[in-house]
């Protein structure tokens, strides 16, 4: 991968990091979910570009999964959940925006130092891609810590997972990427269902599963 092709891959991967930082200071859940959907679109573009540049058509499956599931289905489902639970206007930040942003910038710096510092003579492109991916992973972890709400936690985790997909597709010729991304999608689908069960129980304080049965049709 050289020249323009490399620059485009770089631009797309970098935009994921930027959107991760954007997510850090969203204090409303609806806005947070919208920004997450934007990150998923960026991820899908980035993976699709890798598929094109590496000549690896199976990666288009991963790109499509990212687009369909994480940019459309899950954000829509989460928006409906928070609307139903009446928490769409709630503020959700356990840590102030200033400290969170500072910590985020520090983590991105750490990721760059760690990844670019290890044996600089080896494959530079993969390394820079990994540095971006590690930044997204660390920012996702930070997001999970700074959110109080279960929905915010899930969005943080999914953003962390975006970083993993970025890393896996950036590693040239990595096998099983599609399988792993499918396995992860299943995991995420379960987490979303879990939020559903968990939050509803918390909301209505009932041990009667029949109360949950009404919502079954909503499972994404």
């Amino acid at each position: 991968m050289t020249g323009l092709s490399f620059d485009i891959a770089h631009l797309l991967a970098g935009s994921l990091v930027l959107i991760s930082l954007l997510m850090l200071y969203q204090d409303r859940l609806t806005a947070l979910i919208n920004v997450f959907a934007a990150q998923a679109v960026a991820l899908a573009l980035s993976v699709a570009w890798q598929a094109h540049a590496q000549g690896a058509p199976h990666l288009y499956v991963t790109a499509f999964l990212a687009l369909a599931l994480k940019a459309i289905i899950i954000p829509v489902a989460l928006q409906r959940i928070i609307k139903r639970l009446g928490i769409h206007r709630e503020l959700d930040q356990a840590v102030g925006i200033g400290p969170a942003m500072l910590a985020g910038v520090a983590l991105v710096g750490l990721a760059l130092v760690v990844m670019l510092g290890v044996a600089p003579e080896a494959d530079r492109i993969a390394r820079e891609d990994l540095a971006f991916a590690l930044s997204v992973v660390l920012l996702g972890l930070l997001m999970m810590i700074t959110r109080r709400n279960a929905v915010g936690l899930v969005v943080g985790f999914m953003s962390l997972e975006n970083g993993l997909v970025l890393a896996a597709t950036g590693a040239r010729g990595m096998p099983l990427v599609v399988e792993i991304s499918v396995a992860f999608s299943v995991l995420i689908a379960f987490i979303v269902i879990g939020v559903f069960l968990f939050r509803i129980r918390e909301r209505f304080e009932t041990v009667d599963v029949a109360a949950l049965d009404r919502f079954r049709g909503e499972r994404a």
Partner: protein
Amino acid sequence: MNLDAFVAILGIPALAAAALALIPGYRLSAGLNVAASAATLAAAASLFLVRPPGGLYLRVDDLSVVFIVLSAFVGLTTSVFSASYIAHEVEIGRLTPARLRFYHAMYQVLMFAMNLGLIANNIGLMWVAIELATLTTVMMVAIYRTHEAIEAAWKYFILGSVGIALALFGTILVYVAAQPVVGEGLPGMVWTRLIAAAHGMDPALLNLAFVFLMLGYGTKVGLAPLHAWLPDAHAEGPTPISAVLSGLLLNVALYAVLRFKMLLAANPGAVAPGPLMIAMGLVTLIFAAFMIYRRRDIKRMFAYSSIEHMGVIAFAFGMGGPLANFAGLLHMTMHSLTKSAIFFNVGHIAQAKGTQTIADIRGLTVTHPALGWMLTAGVMAIAGLPPFGIFTSEFLLVSSTFARQPLLAVPLVFGLIVAFGALLMRLQSVAFGEPSPGTARVSASYLPILGHLALVLAAGVFFPPAITQWFQHVARLLG
């Protein structure tokens, strides 16, 4: 495809899971569950005699055989225990028929996932298997649908997911390190090729990968400070699942850590992974030992005891060398057998007394002599008293540590003694105190408990030379 042991080990649980999802009636499904587990054990045992040739995806070696056979054996005894445990749960209406079907199917899916993780020759496949095992156990922990159970499952889910996410990042880093040496595509994730080419990989990348893998899979092993999911998941789920979690799933995660430790050890430039494992092991051991004192819930207490023992095992493998590795393997085997026996026992006790609160369970040797005395034996074994097998492994570990690193032996012995005191203090009131109400008879299945305890006792008194040789061989493999 030939009908070899791989097909059997993976196929039997998979088919059984599909069948169990359809069969109503718990008697039939519990029976089928036992039968499938027995068949899996037979297939696993056949690996001792005939070993199918490994491929790019699956393979067994001397290390994995130990884990597979142990896992299939405990899987079988747990299914026997589960049959009587579940019968009681159905009687008191805690489990509906639909959830029971789900439970049995999930049990076999879990066995499938663990076997797949153990025979995988591919680090990506191993990751997928451990993820699948996590998902199934999360669903089993939540099966009672109480507020506490769902909260425990949620906590397990989030921590476990972060753990496997970090492990995946480590796996990707290993591939990136391997790619220039092994080549692009599938071979870059195949275990046998990785280990053969490990000396040529970039050591800095491997070091970084190991940090992620250790943290990621370490979460699943239950190493402090990432252990928080473990006590909740053990306490709120059905007891057979507590037994399988403690006895097997922790081992599978540990197996993954050991595999990558071997990879690092094969690279001369990489840092020695030992000190990291020793440090995490010791912190885990001492922390968990103190936590045992303060537990009010009996299953939670034994969950902390599992964390403590995983700390000991991580310490042993971190020390490395033939003797410490031998002690680690022996300790892992003995811990799996003893802890699952204790959980079987505790499951029946909780059903008889209708509570898991330690303060409300007293004088068991009077009200339920068989269960009470077996619990006493189990706790004595897990606390490390002779003549049980755990004493042997702890003695080996402590003496070899004293010989090599006397200073490290001090915190090790300290942690073991603290845990010992805590367990015996609790045992005192649970087994011998003033009897508490609740004398209901339980139709307990004593066979699995007695079988496990007998094996642990036998290992402490007389260890067959054949198994000793096998373990010594594996210990040398581990470096």
